[in-house]
């Protein structure tokens, strides 16, 4: 089935205090679809004054939202989930057109995961409690939670809606109000989502402000009313945000990418069965979301003894990846998110060739017949060694760097020889080996005999330069609230010091 491209409103506005508000400057920028290179709509180019309005709206909303009961917030999150689910198809189409990813991904992964994320946080806040301790016969200590207030969230363009949900759901569940800045490459789908949930959302609880990050990013991160900043993006801006956070002494959560190893041990080929089939898919998942995933399994480490037969089967599977129109449910890999990103990936393919890596498949742009002006690249595999730049830098595209290892020790050494530590995968039929690798890999997520699964109730985040803090899982609630200790003495007698 091929979905038809809908016509969208010619222009969107910022969403501030529950209203659609034009940018004060009156300036807009084009939102270009990577699917066909055409303008989808126009998006506000905001400045500091727009940010100020959004922060004040969030702060005003917080004055009442902080008093909402857990039941009220849980109900709100469920209503948000229901509204999104009722409009799932339209939102999925918008996400595909905005980001370029294949419609089978937005229909079956991105948007259903968004819905689930709101439902997950709606549930867990009903079931959790603070703690009470009897410190002695007459002294009671209570640990309770209170929201921070206004939080700023700056999200990336690879999963525009899911990354929004990962940040919004726990923040609201904990009782905060949000000012969010979507990535300029993918601003439309989140605005469409806001239209969908607008009628159930109290005014000012979520505010969306669009534009270039340079000035407004600083304004948001340094504003005295902003009590926390969440950011997903590259390392230098991550450092800058941490530095800005020192101005008002507030916390920041940073997710800054990875170069995730996916390790295949020889026992996977002990039988040519369902599990081996799963392992082949596990490697080819580097092409999921056109490779634009922070946890993309972008380094495949394969045991030397199985390299030739395993790679033969892998290449067959890579050849079977159907490119084409992302709005076609048969399409398996869509477009890269922007022209800039496409060119950056092509630059890496050039670097790989110059460094002497062996090109196993792909290595060029993909010329789409239906969308000649879209931004497409062929799934590409290089074989080389771990010191090459294509093994060390996050390419953020469908480019896999493959290398081999002799034994477990060498595999672990290569896996950990990276500045990042976000995702990783290990594949084996040997339970002892699986344990050794899952504990030995320095990364926040180890997928054991699986990859690219993102349940709400499993924490996600980085070791090393992949960032600080976690996302998903109910532990996220504590990233969005204070802990207050109430220490009560029921003893009638004084301490006796004075």
């Amino acid at each position: 089935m091929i979905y038809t491209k809908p016509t969208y409103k010619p222009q969107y506005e910022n969403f501030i205090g529950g209203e659609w508000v034009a940018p004060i400057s009156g300036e807009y920028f084009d939102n270009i679809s990577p699917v066909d290179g055409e303008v989808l709509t126009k998006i506000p180019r905001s400045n500091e004054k727009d940010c100020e309005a959004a922060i004040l709206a969030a702060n005003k909303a917080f004055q009442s939202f902080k008093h909402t009961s857990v039941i009220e917030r849980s109900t709100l999150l469920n209503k948000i989930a229901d509204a999104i689910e009722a409009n799932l198809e339209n939102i999925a189409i918008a996400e595909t057109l905005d980001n370029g990813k294949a419609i089978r991904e937005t229909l079956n992964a991105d948007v259903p995961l968004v819905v689930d994320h709101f439902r997950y946080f709606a549930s867990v806040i009903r079931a959790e409690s603070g703690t009470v301790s009897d410190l002695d016969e007459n002294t009671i200590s209570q640990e309770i939670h209170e929201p921070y207030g206004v939080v700023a969230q700056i999200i990336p363009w690879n999963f525009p809606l899911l990354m929004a949900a990962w940040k919004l759901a726990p923040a609201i569940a904990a009782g905060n109000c949000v000012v969010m800045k979507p990535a300029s490459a993918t601003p439309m789908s989140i605005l469409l989502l806001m239209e969908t949930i607008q009628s159930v959302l109290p005014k000012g609880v979520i505010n969306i402000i669009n534009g270039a990050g340079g000035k407004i990013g600083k304004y948001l991160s340094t504003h005295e009313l902003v009590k926390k900043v969440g950011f997903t993006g590259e390392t230098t801006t991550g450092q800058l945000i941490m530095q800005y956070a020192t101005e008002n002494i507030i916390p920041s959560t940073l997710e800054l990418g990875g170069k995730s190893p996916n390790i295949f041990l020889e026992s996977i080929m002990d039988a040519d069965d369902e599990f081996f089939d799963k392992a082949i898919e596990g490697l080819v998942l580097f092409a999921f979301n056109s490779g634009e995933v922070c946890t993309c399994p972008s380094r495949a480490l394969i045991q030397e003894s199985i390299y030739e037969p395993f790679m033969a089967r892998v290449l067959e599977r890579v050849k079977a990846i159907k490119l084409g129109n992302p709005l076609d449910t048969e399409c398996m890999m869509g477009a890269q998110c922007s022209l800039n990103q496409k060119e950056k990936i092509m630059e890496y393919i050039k670097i790989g060739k110059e460094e002497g890596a062996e090109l196993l498949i792909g290595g060029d742009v993909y010329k789409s017949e239906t969308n000649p002006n879209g931004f497409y690249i062929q799934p590409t595999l290089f074989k080389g060694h771990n010191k090459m730049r294509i093994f060390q830098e996050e390419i953020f595209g469908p480019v896999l760097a493959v290398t081999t290892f002799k034994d477990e020790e060498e595999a672990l050494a290569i896996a950990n020889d990276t500045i990042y530590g976000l995702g990783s995968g290990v594949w084996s039929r040997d339970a002892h080996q699986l344990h050794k690798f899952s504990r030995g890999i320095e990364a926040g997520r180890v997928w054991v005999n699986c990859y690219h699964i993102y349940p709400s109730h499993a924490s996600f985040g980085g070791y090393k330069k992949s960032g600080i803090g976690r996302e998903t899982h109910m532990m996220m609630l504590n990233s969005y609230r204070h802990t207050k200790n109430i220490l009560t003495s029921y003893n009638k007698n004084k301490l006796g010091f004075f």
Partner: protein
Amino acid sequence: MKRLDVTPAAAEVIERLKKEHGELVFNQSGGCCDGTAPMCYEKGDFYVPSRNVKLGEICGCEFFIDKDQFEYFKHSFITIDVREEKAAFGNSFSLEIDLGYQFITKSRIFTDEEYKQLLEEEK
């Protein structure tokens, strides 16, 4: 022998940014989304990590890279270029995006001869 150069087009944008912001500093970024692009900030606004490596200067502005990143960048000759980007300018805080541009890092691997000469000169 240099490690770093700038295209005339990028130099023009840098000069415009200098007029608006004063002295600038560059830091090569890494990681997700807009990673592997140079980030341009006002000098003094970005605290350059004390162990970062200075790759050189462009238009009189210092250009740094994380010391671990330098380990695998050291064999590459870098040219800072720019492209007009009126729409999809990512989510970084780099200053040129407000003007509708995006700086790009272009690389060429040094030949063995060049790299030997470079190391000699840097001794």
